[in-house]
């Protein structure tokens, strides 16, 4: 009689909760399983613990904005990374090492673009997973500023396919103590396969000069990337004898720029240069510029690679015709040699034209995999050093090396113009 009476004391309602609690506890335990089988997670900053982690699995993560309108670009970067890993069968050192890949999102829906808190949390997650040996990312230079120092103290290497802010690597090109502030342990752990803005801004100004531009008005989106590139464009343009009518930052959240464009129109420029990204309202700028009567045959609109994507054309509609964009590299369709083979493969595999950064995503993953192959064990510091020491690398972009700062030695860029709602390659540009 005893045991049934204790059951009777349980009302149907609480019985339900007990059942629920049991089930959820089971689910939780199952969810925790992968973590408990791994080596105890050490707090970030003690890289020496990594050999303890079984040793035959390494993990590459990417931290890119996968929510928001950068998605067009970042998805093709991820495609490029996956292509590399599939080609190596997710393994290295003839099967001795297994390579895992995880895609992290550093954007939030509320922000519509990269979010500082998300970037930091991604970096910390990467550091605390002992298998992670390399991060591919970030897409935005502002995000790199936050991620590099966190990864640096844990000796995790970061290779960016898209950051172009000079101050991340080049002494004297940024502000104050840049770039040393990003490398607290004194050893460089960051490299990029794309040329920096000090080259791209200059290439833009050179292009404007060859097109016969005489009077330019410069705008920027007040972000690290946009303002940096606009400043370089400005100084180069001045040196080339182009008259700079003004330079100001825009409110990237404004719903329209008619007042601003009315003011610019009165100054009678023949080019408006916008240092910034599509997500900071470049499309609306183009629209309102045309709205107040600055037609493409009289006033051109030029921007950096931040507007070199289909999203800009979707945003600006028919007004996008004639918009010019520089790109710190060459579009996939213009690559030669191995690059051409890659371009064909990509198109076959994903059944789409690769966006501008796809080749750079592919190249970044190649460099990392190559370094893992050299080191052949789960050793963060050794893989970092191997990546940073990349010399005469024969990749899809051509033959290049990382210099002492972690910058690529490539400097060929391209100018692209929107024709019938598509960016078309226009000409090769030189930064000098």
């Amino acid at each position, binding site marked *: 009689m005893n045991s049934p009476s204790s059951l009777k004391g349980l009302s149907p309602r609480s019985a339900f909760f007990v059942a629920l609690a049991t089930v959820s506890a089971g689910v939780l335990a199952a969810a925790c399983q992968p973590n408990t089988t791994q080596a105890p997670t050490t707090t970030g900053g003690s890289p020496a613990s990594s050999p303890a982690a079984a040793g035959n699995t390494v993990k590459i993560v990417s931290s890119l904005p996968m*929510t*928001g*309108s950068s*998605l*067009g670009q970042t998805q093709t970067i991820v495609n490029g990374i996956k292509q590399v890993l599939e080609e190596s069968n997710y393994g290295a050192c003839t099967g001795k090492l297994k390579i895992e890949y995880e895609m992290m999102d550093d954007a939030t*829906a*509320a922000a*519509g673009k990269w979010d500082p808190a998300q970037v930091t949390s991604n970096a910390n997650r990467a550091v605390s997973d002992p298998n992670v040996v390399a991060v591919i990312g970030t897409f935005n230079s502002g995000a790199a500023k936050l991620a590099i120092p966190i990864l640096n103290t844990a000796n995790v290497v970061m290779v960016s396919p898209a950051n172009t802010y000079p101050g991340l690597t080049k002494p004297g090109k940024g502000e104050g103590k840049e770039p040393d502030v990003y490398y607290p342990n004194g050893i460089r752990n960051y490299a990029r396969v794309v040329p920096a803005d000090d080259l791209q801004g200059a290439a833009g100004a050179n292009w404007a000069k060859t097109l016969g531009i005489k009077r330019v008005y410069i705008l920027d989106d*007040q972000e690290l990337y946009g303002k940096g590139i606009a400043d370089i464009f400005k100084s180069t343009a001045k040196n080339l004898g182009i008259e700079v009518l003004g330079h*100001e*930052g*825009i*409110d990237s*959240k*404004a*719903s*329209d*720029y*008619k*007042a*601003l464009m*009315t*003011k610019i129109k*009165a100054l009678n420029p023949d080019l408006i240069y916008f240092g910034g990204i*599509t997500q900071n*309202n470049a*499309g*609306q700028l183009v*629209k*309102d510029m045309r*709205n*107040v*009567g600055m037609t493409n045959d009289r006033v051109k609109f030029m921007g950096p690679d931040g507007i070199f994507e*289909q*999203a800009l054309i*979707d*945003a*600006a*509609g*028919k007004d996008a015709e004639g918009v010019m964009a520089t790109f710190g590299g060459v579009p996939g369709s213009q690559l030669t040699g191995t690059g051409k083979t890659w371009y064909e493969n990509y198109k076959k595999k994903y059944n789409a034209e690769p966006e501008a950064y796809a080749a750079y995503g592919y190249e970044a993953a190649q460099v990392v995999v190559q370094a893992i192959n050299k080191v052949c064990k789960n050793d963060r510091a050794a893989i970092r050093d191997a990546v940073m020491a990349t010399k005469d690398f024969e990749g899809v972009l051509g033959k290049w090396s990382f210099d002492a700062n972690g910058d690529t030695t490539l400097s060929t860029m391209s100018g692209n113009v929107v024709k019938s709602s598509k960016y078309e390659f226009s000409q090769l540009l030189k930064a000098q």
Partner: protein
Amino acid sequence: MKRWQSSLLYLGVAYLILLIGPLAGLDIPRIIGDIARSPDVLVQQILVGLVNGAIIAIIALGYTLVYGIIELINFAHGDLYMLGAFASLTVVGALGVQDGAPLQSSLLPMLAALVVASVFCAGVNMLTERYAYRPLRNAPRLAPLISAIGVSFIFINTGLFWGGLRAFFPIMGANAAAPKSFPDLLPRIDLLKQFGIQSNIAFTTKDLIVLVVAVVLMVSLHLFVQYTRLGKAMRATAQNRDAARMMGINVDLIIALTFLLGGALAGAAGLLVGLYNNTVVFTMGFTAGLRAFTAAVLGGIGNIIGAMLGGVLIGVLSALSDQYLSSRWTNAWVFAVLVIILAFRPGGLLGEKLQEKV
């Protein structure tokens, strides 16, 4: 604080502004020189500001209406207007209207978009009221406010999802989150040139349509609230809910009606902005909402004419700041004016004069 103390405080603020003035571009002689050199630019910017202000004012009406009745700052309103813009874009796209289509072929689709967007937003707003605000009506005031912020996030994500439905609506473009181009449908005939006045000032039919729609909406709303039976019931509910209920007014129905009206206005504003700025993006509600809310506060929240005044004031101030200062200071400048006005008139420009809150 005594009167002389507060005067001293304002003097101090004025002195500070003069000090940092040149930094912020507040150098008066240069600005006066600019205006003297080209007065038509000033006129042009005031026109630009007027039209932008009218748009802000239409959105501000939604805030003011709801606040007037249940004293809730409906933070979701800006994002509801964004959903209205998406609804309009969907209708216009589904009816196959192309960029730059002539008015004969685009008029009906535009009217259809107006009806669909208004009905859609009115319905969504009523449902929101029923399920997110009504259960909290007697809760502490912060509870419905938080609820409104939550609804706002739901709307933002709905917009993001909606933008990704290119399989059904090709007009949404390749990328869910990217700004979408709204077809340019309103005729753009320069009115001044049409009347034979040669000048550098452009005032097109597009601007005129926005102004006229805004004024008509506001005047009819004002008349509705002041002179109809339902309007009277709304005002009674605003003054004292319990007393109104005792007088036989169905308070729940009246509040639902207010949300219906506010939603319909948001839908109409969504279409109007789509047609005027030609861009629709899922984040557009936040900034627009912030500005509209500011306009409502500036004019005296709960006051319809005040919302219009506040909207126009913000629009013109921003345009002038873009022209004569630098656009990077525009927001700071607009909100500084807000602070100063509220310091002198805490109830907003028209807040104290009119006792009634609707």
